[in-house]
């Protein structure tokens, strides 16, 4: 839910989209408290509250279906029929401060059943900063090459003495032939 705030904030036309969304999928409106802030034209909320969590550390957009208002496509057919139209709808590509984003929503049986992020790319410096961060990884992720032909070993500097106990000396002694 909190993800919505920053998303709106980076988006000048968010209010219109949000309103269209409300018209099209009325049952979801009550779950969208942030849309009120966006509808009132607030564009400075990025720095307040939970705005900083609008994208995760990798720069991805929020994917919570109830707080992803970017898909304006379903609003149009919905408005034309006065009800909810089933189908798959692609949202417009929208430039946010975390890069260009696009979502696809799936409406089935009159209900929103899925939201798929179609497009995420880092665009500005801020998103590069987010996506370039070092993040925790597991040892298994780091070492997947048990059978790889390791030619060298890197480690904190060994002295001439400790070299003798090093993996590097073992590789050297074996005259590595990989």
């Amino acid at each position: 839910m909190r993800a919505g705030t920053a998303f709106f904030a980076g988006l000048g036309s968010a209010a219109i989209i949000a309103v269209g969304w409300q018209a099209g999928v009325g049952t979801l409106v009550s779950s969208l408290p942030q849309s009120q802030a966006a509808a009132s034209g607030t564009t400075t909320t990025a720095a307040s509250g939970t705005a900083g969590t609008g994208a995760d550390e990798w720069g991805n957009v929020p994917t919570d279906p109830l707080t992803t208002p970017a898909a304006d496509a379903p609003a149009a057919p919905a408005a034309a029929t006065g009800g909810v139209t089933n189908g798959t709808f692609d949202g417009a590509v929208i430039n946010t401060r975390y890069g260009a984003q696009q979502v696809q929503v799936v409406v089935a049986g009159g209900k929103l059943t899925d939201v798929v992020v179609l497009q995420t790319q880092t665009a500005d410096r801020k998103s590069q900063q987010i996506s370039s961060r070092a993040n925790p990884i597991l040892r298994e992720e780091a070492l997947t090459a048990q059978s790889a032909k390791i030619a060298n070993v890197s480690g904190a500097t060994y002295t001439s003495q400790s070299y003798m106990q090093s993996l590097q000396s073992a590789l050297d002694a074996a005259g590595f032939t990989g």
Partner: protein
Amino acid sequence: MSVHAFETMGTMVSIRIADTALSERDAQAAVTAVEQECGRLNEKFSLYRDDSELSQIARGELTLANSSDDMRTEYARALEWREKTDGAFTPHRPDGVIDLNGTIKAVAIDSAAQILTQAGFQNFSVNVGGDLTTSGDQSPEEQGWITGIVDPADRAVMLAAVRVTAEFPAMATSGTSERGEHIWARPETTTDFVQATVMAGDIITADVLATAIISGGQATLDQITQNFAVAVLTVAPDGALQANARFQELVAR
């Protein structure tokens, strides 16, 4: 593949040459030239040698202004890196003595690679005490140079294996697990990491940034992954690993 190992600068150099076009005699000549260059740098910049130029400066017998061009060039280079890392890397010991150990080993690796390249070799690695640079491929079947990263908790175990290629041909690892690292800590230096590995476009960048991460901790790590094109793996005291996305992509599979 030929392997050549020799001792210099208080550590060991391991050179691997994968070129088959050139003879073993050509390789031996190039390795000898590398050995001489390492010896020259050691004689000038080692603080372990009383007769080195840097030791003379440390004792106040020689001023920087009157020192050799090499000395002033390397000191300027180290100061530049102090700027680029916001002081996390510094060429000064706490007592004020200039210590260029943080860059000279990398300079030696860089020079060694140039010597080998000029001798006509295209596929080789130069590993000095656990920091290395590479060129080409380790074999026709294996692109780049697969390189293991030591676990600081057990140096007989590897934490990761990555493919070192032309994008980031150099890799350096700094840590607190062995002496001789010459990481001159600022008073506020952290204990965030016990080991940092940096892959970069050149060995001097890799070596300096690995040192800076150990010295400056998480804040410096964040700054470096943001501002430099590098792949990074760090190890916290509890063994927890952190890596940026590029590093994970380079894990050898």
